Structure formats: C-alpha cells, structure tokens
C-alpha cells in the first residue's frame, strides 16, 4: 500500500508540473512571449482591464483552447486506457487496440465523404468509436473465451475491418479536398481546435472522470476477477457496463476532436502504475495528470518544432513506441 503522504506528494508534484507546462506552452509558438507577459494578459483580463490586443488574441483565442484541449484529451485517453485495462484485467489493452480509434476514424471519414460540418464529423467519430468498442468487447463473449489474447485479437480484427472500410471511403473520396482531410484526420492534430469544440467535449470528459474516480475502488475488485467481485456482492455486469461506457465515451470524445492519437492510452497507465502502484483510487488521478502533461508536451512540440505542424500520431508514435518497449524491458515482459 502506497502511503497516503507519498501519494499526496505525487499528485501535488504532477499538478505543479502540469501548471508549469501549461504556462510554458502558452508562451511558446511562432510569436513567443515571456511568462510575465502571459500573466499580465491573464490578470488584466480577470481584473477587467484592457490587455494588449494581439497578445490577448494569441493567448485566449489561439493558444489557451488548444493547450486546454491537449490536457483534456491526454487525460481522457489515459483514463480510458486505465479503465479498460483494469476492467478487462489486461495490461495490454488500450483504446486503440480495442478499435476505438479506428472506429472513430471511420465515422469521421464517412462524415467527410458525405460533406458534413465539423460538428457532424465529431458526432460521427464519436458513434464510430462506440460501435467499434462494442464489437471488440462482445467478440470474446461470443467465442466464450475471455483470455487476454482473445480480447487483443478481437481488437485487431475490429481494427483491421474498420481500416479496410476507411480504405474504401478513401477510394470513393474526392482527391483534392476530401482525401486530404481524411488522411489529416487519421494522423491526428489539434491545430483547428476552437473554444466551441473544447466546450463540446468538456462535459462528457469531466463526467466520466468523476464517475471513474468514484467507482475506482470497486474497479480494483473487478480487476481481481469477475468471480471475486461477484462473491463480495458486486453487480459485475452493471459495474463493468458503466466503466466500459465511460472509457469509450472518454476516447470517443477525445478522438472526435483530435483525430486518432495512438499510444497514450497504452503507455500512460503503465507509467502511472510505475509511480503509484495498481490501486485505481490513486492511479486514476495520477494517470489523468500524467496523460494531460504528456499530451501537452507532444502537442507543443508538434506546433513549435518546425515551421509546419507535425501530426500528433507521428510524434506520439515516435515517443510512445520506444517508451513502451522500455517499459516491457523494465518489467521483463511480466504483463504477458
């Protein structure tokens, strides 16, 4: 058992780090600012004064929505991965492996093909993600085999099928504009995020976060196994249902804005466990903070490293894949 004091120190440490990162991210960009400038804009805005107009636009209209979206999406993906891993008792599961990301891409691609607006694309992506996870999680039930491998394989099957359908849509799309949008969407980016989009995912993500946090101790029991949970009086079907819905809502909300971003939902829960152990009552807040910080770093790098935006899935893959390899090496592949 992790001592309470140590845990509180971890959470405070992560919170402060995230705060510093947010301020740093607000300063960084093509038009770089001092932290004091950013603070000035904030205090002026809050006290009802008139800050420098161009600075205000950059901070409040351009950077802040994007920075907050990055934190929110990173937290959502990490929480989603944590919840899936615990409820399926499978440390190899992640939102992308369950096909959520591919399903969301398919939904978005379909909306782009049909010429839908940004909101419609977001909605389609959301529904696609949910359908994919339902397919992936119901397959082991039909096969009556609940081993770790079956679920991973189901995820691969669903992902493969969804990817094939995306291919079909790409073939059917107009080369000049639609195809480019679909490809861009699949690579993931926060470059077009606006306040309205941020607000549209804020509520579902916060609600799911609270629900998962409240149920986190029960999630621990579920992670020991269905029988163990049921024999201590837990309604396994109901609890697992709520948790899967929350985890799927989180990922679907995130990718509906950002496009597909792989790896975060897989590696952040593992890093969280490295820091604070497997106890979900502590892991859920830790993973949310860690994921938010990680995503913010990735997105800030994506928009500042070169003169053009680097798609998020490229950066998260470049960073995430080696990190996961290192984690496996460290744990001597115990997860298998």
């Amino acid at each position, binding site marked *: *058992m992790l001592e309470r004091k140590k845990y509180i120190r971890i959470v405070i440490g992560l919170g402060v780090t995230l705060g510093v990162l947010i301020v740093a991210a607000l300063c960084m960009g093509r038009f770089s600012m001092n932290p004091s400038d950013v603070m000035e804009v904030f205090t002026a805005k809050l006290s009802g004064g008139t800050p420098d107009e161009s600075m205000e636009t950059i901070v409040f209209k351009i950077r802040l929505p994007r920075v907050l979206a990055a934190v929110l999406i990173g937290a959502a993906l990490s929480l989603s991965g944590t919840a899936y*891993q*615990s409820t399926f*008792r*499978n*440390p190899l599961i992640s939102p992308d492996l369950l096909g959520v990301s591919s399903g969301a891409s398919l939904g978005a691609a379909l909306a782009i093909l049909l010429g839908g607006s940004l909101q419609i694309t977001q909605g389609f992506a959301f529904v696609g993600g949910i359908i994919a996870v339902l397919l992936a999680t119901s397959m082991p039930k039909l096969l009556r085999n609940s081993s*770790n491998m079956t679920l991973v394989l189901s995820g691969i099957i669903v992902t493969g099928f969804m990817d094939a359908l995306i291919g079909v849509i790409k073939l059917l799309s107009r080369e000049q504009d639609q195809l480019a949008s679909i490809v861009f969407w699949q690579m993931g980016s926060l470059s077009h995020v606006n306040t309205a989009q941020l607000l549209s995912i804020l509520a579902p993500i916060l609600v799911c976060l609270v629900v998962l946090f*409240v*149920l986190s*101790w*029960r999630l*621990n*029991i579920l*992670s*020991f*196994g269905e*029988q*163990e949970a*049921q*024999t*201590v*009086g*837990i*309604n396994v079907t109901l609890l697992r249902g709520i948790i899967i819905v929350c985890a799927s809502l989180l990922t679907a909300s995130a990718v509906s804005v950002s496009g597909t971003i792989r790896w975060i939902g897989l590696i952040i829960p593992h890093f969280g*466990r490295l820091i604070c*152990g*497997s*106890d979900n*009552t502590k892991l859920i807040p830790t993973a949310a903070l860690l994921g938010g910080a990680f995503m913010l770093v990735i997105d800030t790098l994506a928009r500042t490293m070169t003169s053009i935006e680097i798609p998020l899935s490229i950066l998260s893959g470049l960073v995430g894949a080696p990190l996961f390899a290192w984690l496996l090496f460290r744990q001597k592949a115990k*997860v298998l």
Partner: protein
Amino acid sequence: MSIEISNLDFSYGTKQVLRNLNLSINPAETLTILGPNGSGKTTFLSLVAGLLAPSGGSIVYDGKPFKAMSLRKMAQLVGYVPQILMPAFDYSVLDYVVTGCAPQIGSLGRPRQKHYDTALEAIQLLGIEHLTEKSYRQISGGERQQVSIARVLAQSPTYILMDEPTSHLDYGNQIRVLKTIKQLKEKGFGVVFTTHNPDQALLIEGKTAIIDRQGNLVFGDSSEMIDEEYLSELFGTQMRIARIEKKGRKVCYAASLNNEETEEAERVEEAELAEEAEMAEEAERVEEVELVEEMGADI
C-alpha cells in the same frame, strides 16, 4: 441455520452436469466435496456461491431461496475462495484482503480505517502479519491461499466455500490449509471445500459429499462415505482404507501401481495379515489383563 439444497439440477446447454442433488450444509461443520475430474464439483460450489443459477430444484436459506436474495445479502451469507489465480495487477496483501469488506461498504464508498482494522484482524488470525505490506504477486502459492482465506474472513460470511484449496500446494501447505479449515469450523463457520484427495475427508472428518461422473451426489458422515469399494469404482483405481492404531484414524490411499489381479492377491494377503495382527493384538491384550490381575493379586 442450514443451507437446504433440494432436487438441484444443473445443465450447461444440453449437457446435464448435476442431477437431483439433495443435501444440507450446516454452520460449524465441514463438508468435503469429492469427485473425479469434470464431475461438477466446481459447478456445485458456484451454485452454492450464487455464481450460477440452478436449472432445476432449489437452494434455500432461512426459508428464502437464493435467487430472491440480493448480491450483497448473498455475500454476507456465503464467501468464496476461488482457486489460486495470478492477478493481472499488483496490489499489496492488505489492499487485497480489505476487498473482503466490500459487502459492508456502500456502492460508491471506499474502505475506511475500521475496514482496514477488520482486514488486519483477519490477517493476524491466520498468522500472516509478515505478509501485510508485501505484493500479492510476489508471495508464494501457499501464502496466497492463506491471504485469500484472510480476505474471506474479513468478509465474515456464515459459510465459506473453497474451490480446491489444496491443489497446487506442496504437502506442508496442504496440511496447513486443512488446519485452517478445521479452525474455521471451530469458530462456527460452515466450510465447504472440494478436493481430489479422499484422505483429506478422513483427516478433517465432518461430512462428505461425493459427486460421480454422471453428476449424482451421495452425502453422509465422512467416516461412512469413504468406502473402499465405492471410491475404487469412482476413481477407477484400487483404493485402500486402513486404520492407524497409533493415531486412532483411518487413512485412504491408492493400493499400488500394479494391475488389478496382483491387487486382488495382495488384498487377500493383506486381509490375512490384518487378521493375524488382530489376533496377536487380542492375545497381547489378554496377556496384559492377566498381568494386571496378577499384579493386583500381589498387592
């Protein structure tokens, strides 16, 4: 109050696993469930634990059928110690044991200090305090079995079910588990456990139920149920039961690894030997009595 099981049937799809079982399970008593592989021992336990619903018949406690009981009520009545499993994630022993308190904690709640105290008490009762802060994944199989029992003690149900608590354990740990079962019985718990070893039924006494390959169950006092002929047929191998006078208990064992004809010859020979031994014993006893009488006369 007993758990009354009557005319219990269970089928997986079209395959009938248990047929018309009738028995009662009492508090402060042990019930050993014996049977060959695939005879439905675990299925039977799952039914009593409320993990499966019967296809026919009923399981009733205090006039109330199990199906009418809430999951929480069920958990307060029956605790279940599953076969040793390796959890996917790492928890400390204390964090694991405290999950036994779940029936006493609200659906949205978390364990408080008093629940941790209950868990610590259960850990103490089993004498495994040294494991409290250890990682559940890194302790041995025997220790994990004791930890699982501590968890069910923290749950504090009236009945405790254990699915093959001695399998995968070395001999010393098997005996340790049996001792624990006996202690639990003495504390007033009704303990039901499945095993492959008929000798355990004799060792622990109490009641025994035997499930055969057809899914029929016979039930009675352990000393009567452990019968050479019946067990030999059940397990398809020659079984022997002998009395160890020194310990005053019977043991059950496989006769030998020879084929059946040599078996029979050996059996006859052994019976003769036993008779001879008995006669010798009788003679000794007579001698002793005479000796005592003589001494008495001297005094």
